[in-house]
Each structure stands twice: as structure tokens, then as C-alpha cells.
């Protein structure tokens, strides 16, 4: 009897395995066929077949996966790009290790890491932002709370415990705030979003700056049930939607998905003391305000930029690339990255708008191009 059971389950799992493998090969064949088709249609470019692998930032992933990869097929049919959403920390570490050619990251590499790996480049591809989102039933979908980095830091340190705290009320005159405990949501994985958010808190609150600082993974305040970790932007959005009276930080490319689940997002206090929303104009204003300060290695924080309209949590989306690449790979990588930052190519509005990203400021693009030219050199 037992034997029969074992056999049946083995057969069942084998069948499942075979069907999965079947799907895999099927898809593979299709892809190859499609590739051949475009090759013949394109009339044969001379460059060799190259596969570029990208991994990292879940914030940058929708741009790669839904926009750039399909668009680039018509630009260079010989290049296949694979993208994966694994988190900025992984983007940096895999690019350094050489497992992937492009490591996507919302965070630039630290000084210590750069001096250990001097051949690495941090190349901004686009401008991105992050919004602070909350689940407050009955607030109204169009209502945006005013929040400041100082207040957010106190919420995440457990010093502000309830939504109707006088410090939150003071920023939101006339708003009926619920007498409910706040559940703060954070990223548990190595995250560029954590890097950006904690940078904003460090810039706004001295206690945060001295105790917790900023990084892709920090030693969070121990406030028990009031601070919960979730994996990835997807995890944070799900947890916010599941938990009433919660607050969390979410990358801008997830804005539409999150608002569709009934989450609201805050107007944040900027460097000039104004409360601003992550609109296209406000993100652009912040990027432009910092554009002249961008150094030649382009490792710079755009957080808390000056200007009345500047949105405070803005960043470059980086391609972390090792400049030591050989032959075909170097030229394919250069060509793709140059296309990606081209205002008429990958940086054009048709690819940027669906994920709420913005093109690089005009003065930054040449700096990215200069870095791209170092590849293979």
C-alpha cells in the first residue's frame, strides 16, 4: 500500500516537473525564434550576440522590465537583456562580484567599498523619488497629510505613538486625525528605499542622525509591534494595505499600485519648509537644484534639495557597472547605457512617465556619458 502511495506521489511530482520544464523550453524556443526573426528583419548588424544581465533595485525594475527591455530589442536586436528585482544591496554586491553586468541600485557605493573596488562606476540612469504612504480609513483619498522628516523620525523611533499626536496635528490644522496607534512599516531586506528614507530622516532629525544614520540596512529602533519589517516594495504595499493606521515608505514606481489599494501619500516638508507632493515638477525641481553639484563620479545624495518646490526624497537610479569589461560585452554595455540615458532613447517620456521617473538633468547626462566611456577602457 505504502509502496503504491509513494509511486503515485513520485509520478505526480515527476509529471509536475516535466510540465514545468516543458514550459521553460517552450518559452526558450519562442524567444530564440523571435530573435532570429528580428535579426533577418533588421538586415543583419555585424555585432555579436550578447546577453546583458541586470539585477537589483525593485524601484528600477519596472522601468527595465516593462519599458526598456522590449524597446531596446528594436535598437539592437543582437543584445538580450535579462532583468531581476532583487533589491539594491544585491545589485551592488552582484555587480562587484561580476555575476551581472549591470547592478541596479537606488544607493551609490560607499567610500570604503569604492576604495576596495576602484574599477566600479556609479552611473545615474534616471531620476526617481519615494513617497511616504499611509493607511488611514476615513481620511479621504484626495487628502494628503503634511509630514516632516523630524516627525517621521519620531514615529519610527516610537516617540510619536498615535496619529492624533499634537506634533502631527500641528502640521495638519483642521484635519480630523484618529486616536489610533501608528504601525510603522520598514523594509527588512537590503533596500535602496531604506537608504533614501533614512537619509531623509538623518537630514531632518539629529537624534536619528547620531543613533541610526543611513544605509541599505540599519540597526532599527527596538519598538516592538510598532515597527514591522516587510520584504520588497511589494511586501510593504501589501502590509500597509493589510494594516489599518500604518505608515511606510514606497518607491515612486509603485505609486499607482499602492493608491489603487486605497493608500494615501503625504506632502513632505522640504528644505525650504514647504510641504510638497512627489509630482513631476517637484521631483524635477529637486534634481535641477542639485544638478550643478554632481561630481564626476556622480555619487551624490539628492535628498532634501533646496528650493521652494523641491520634493525632499529624490535620488538617482544607478547602474553599478565594472569598467573592466572585454570586447563585445564592453561595446554592447556602452551602447545600451548610452541609449538608456539618451533623452531621445531610454530617457524619453514614453518610458519614464509610466513609472513616474524623470530624465537626467541636461547637465548630468554628459557626466554619465563620460563615465560610460570609461567602460572597457
Amino acid at each position, binding site marked *: 500500500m505504502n509502496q503504491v502511495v509513494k509511486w503515485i506521489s513520485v509520478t505526480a511530482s515527476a509529471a509536475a516537473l516535466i510540465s514545468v520544464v516543458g514550459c521553460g523550453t517552450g518559452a526558450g524556443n519562442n524567444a530564440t525564434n523571435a530573435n532570429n526573426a528580428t535579426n533577418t528583419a533588421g538586415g543583419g548588424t555585424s555585432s555579436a550576440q550578447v546577453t546583458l544581465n541586470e539585477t537589483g533595485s525593485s524601484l528600477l525594475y519596472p522601468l527595465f522590465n516593462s519599458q526598456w527591455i522590449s524597446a531596446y530589442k528594436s535598437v539592437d536586436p543582437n543584445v538580450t537583456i535579462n532583468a531581476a528585482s*532583487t533589491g539594491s544591496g544585491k545589485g551592488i554586491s552582484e555587480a562587484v562580484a561580476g555575476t551581472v553586468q549591470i547592478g541596479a541600485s537606488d544607493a551609490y557605493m*560607499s567610500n*570604503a567599498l569604492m576604495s576596495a573596488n576602484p574599477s566600479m562606476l556609479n552611473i545615474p540612469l534616471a531620476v526617481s523619488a519615494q513617497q511616504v504612504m499611509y493607511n488611514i480609513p476615513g481620511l479621504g483619498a484626495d487628502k494628503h497629510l503634511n509630514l516632516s522628516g523630524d516627525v517621521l523620525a519620531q514615529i519610527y523611533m516610537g516617540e510619536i505613538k498615535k496619529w492624533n499626536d499634537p506634533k502631527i496635528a500641528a502640521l495638519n490644522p483642521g484635519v480630523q486625525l484618529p486616536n489610533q496607534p501608528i504601525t510603522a512599516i520598514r523594509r527588512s531586506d537590503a533596500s535602496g528605499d531604506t537608504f533614501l528614507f533614512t537619509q531623509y530622516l538623518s537630514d531632518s532629525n539629529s537624534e536619528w542622525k547620531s543613533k541610526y544614520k543611513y*544605509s541599505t540596512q540599519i540597526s532599527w529602533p*527596538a519598538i*516592538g*509591534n510598532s515597527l*514591522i519589517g516587510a520584504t520588497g516594495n511589494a511586501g510593504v504595499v*501589501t502590509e500597509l494595505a493589510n494594516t489599518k493606521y*500604518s505608515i511606510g515608505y514606497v518607491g515612486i514606481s509603485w505609486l499607482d499600485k499602492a493608491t489603487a489599494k486605497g493608500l494615501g501619500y503625504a506632502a513632505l516638508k522640504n528644505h525650504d519648509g514647504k510641504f510638497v507632493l512627489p509630482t513631476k515638477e517637484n521631483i524635477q525641481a529637486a534634481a535641477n537644484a542639485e544638478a550643478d553639484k554632481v561630481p564626476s563620479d556622480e555619487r551624490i545624495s539628492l535628498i532634501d534639495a533646496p528650493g521652494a518646490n523641491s520634493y525632499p526624497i529624490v535620488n538617482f537610479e544607478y547602474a553599478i557597472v565594472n569598467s573592466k569589461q572585454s570586447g563585445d560585452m564592453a561595446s554592447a554595455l556602452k551602447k545600451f547605457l548610452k541609449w538608456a540615458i539618451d533623452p531621445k532613447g531610454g530617457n524619453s517620456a514614453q518610458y519614464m512617465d509610466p513609472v513616474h521617473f524623470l530624465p537626467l538633468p541636461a547637465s548630468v547626462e554628459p557626466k554619465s556619458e563620460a563615465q560610460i566611456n570609461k567602460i572597457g577602457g
Partner: protein
Amino acid sequence: MRKVSSASKTADKVFRVATGLCASSPVLFLVAIGIVVFIESVPSIKFMGWHFLTGTQWNLGDMYGNLEVKNGVSAPAGATYGALPYIVGTLASSVIALLIAVPVAIFTAIILAYRVRGPVKTVLSILVELLAGIPSVVFGLWGVIVLAPWVAQFFGPLLTHLGVVIPFFRGPVGTGMGLLSSGLILALMIVPIITATTRDLLEQVPILYREGGIGLGMTNWEVVRKICLPYVKDGLIGAVALGWGRAMGETMAVLMVSGSAINYLPHSIFSPISTMAAVIADQLDSALTDATHLAVHALAELALVLMLLTLITNFLARWLVHRGGQRVRSGVRA
């Protein structure tokens, strides 16, 4: 006498070498993994000493700041690694899982072994084994979407009534992400292993013993309680140890519903926790961006502690078997 051809002799030699190699591979792999994990954790052991086991602060340090040197090991300023919250989280969640899973698994196994026949038994057995085959991440997803909200809204508030008697059950319930959800999801994951092993054990109880019991007028429960379970006690404890090991090492599902607590010891069954395996998975990517690599070494030490803990529980289970074994054996024979 049979004349052995040279081909047969060669085949026999190949057979010997092949079986020898294969048979020694578990030992070799175990030793190799142990050595690598130990060597990787040496800098962290030097850096933290025993504080690694007793400290509650886990801090990768200021990775965007300066480096400092402590105990001969360079690290980002402010780095400190105290793994106690993760050790407690691992033990607490796996023990909760065992408390739920063991009774469920044993009763299921009794039904499968003795009470159902034919197609019903086949279908039930397949279902139990398929449950074991569900990928961890699927359990995790289900945990985030279904289990945690259910715990937060219904099960948790229900349990808080027990808080009057047992302080550890006191609220607030919070988001449902935490110790209780981790324990529940781990229980689900280890039930199939314990069930399948126990079922096979129970089927080995000689039919004569059971018939004898029934012949003496024992009820079903008495036969199971007084004859079958004592007969398989050794194996049963082995099965529980197997489930415990799995629960302690389980990563993805726990990571998704644990609430990923850091620097925090659980105050109640609803507190967010984190386990050693989950922390390794969660923090490795950030750790790899630590230029001094100390963060990776600390995670390796965490892996070492996890391996040792699994080993200790295994030996503990064996010792329990050994201690109780003699008496039970004679009891059955009598």
C-alpha cells in the same frame, strides 16, 4: 568454483569505489560545510567574543562612514553583532510549531495507519505528502495575505483572553506579523514530515501485538496509547527532532511573516521576531556591501550557531530516546 571474468572483477572494483565515494559524501560535505562556515566566522568571533550570543544589538555600523578597528578586526564605525534576539526567535517559533504540529501529526498518522483503507488512504497520504512539497515561499505568501490578517483580526484577539492567566498571551495583537504567525506557518510546514514518518513507524507495529490488545478488551485509544506509541517511541522522537530541525532552519516563509524584528526580544506571542535563518537571508545583500566583510563573517557565525543548535537538539532527542528506551522495550515484550 565459479570462474570470475575480468570484466566482472573490474565491475566489482568500480562498484566498490563508487559506493565508497557516495557513502562518504555526506560526511565529507558536512565536514566541508562546517569548516568553511567556521573559518568564515573567525573574524566575527574575534570581534564580538561571547557577546555574540548574549548581546541584543545587531548593527552593521555606519557603512557610509569611516572604518574603525576593534579587537584587531576592522569594521564600519558602530558595528556590533548580538544574536540573542534571533536565537530566541528561532527557538520560540520552532517550539510553538512543535507544540501545534506534534499532536496533529500523530493523530493524522494514527488515522492513516490504522483507520482508513483503500482509495481514501491513498488520497489522504498523497495530500499529506503534497503538503510537504509546497514551496516555502508559497506558504509565506499565503501567510502574508491570509494568515497574518486573520491572526490580527480574529485569532489574536481571541487568544488575548488567555492573557489573564498567561502573561505571554497579553496584547496588543498588532499586525499579525510575528511570533504566533511564524509558529503557525512552521507548524503547517512540519506536520507532513512528522506525519509521514510516524505513519510509516506505526505501520511497522506487528499486527499480533495490536490484535492481542484488542483481544484483551482494550479500546482503540488504549491500543494506540499503551501498545503502538510505546513501540515506536524511539522513532517518534526522531521524527519530532527532524521536524524541529526543519522548523529552525526554515527561512523564506518565516521571513515573510515574522515582522523581521531587530534589536528586540519578544515580549508576547504577538511580538515581531526574527530567526537566524531569516536574518541571514535578509541581511546578506547589505552585508556584501560592507567593505570590511565583517557583516558577512557575522552572518557566517550566525549560520554556525544555527548548525550547532540543530545538532544539539538532535543529540538531545537521541539522549531522551536512549534514556527512556530500555524501560519501554521491556514493557512491550512483557
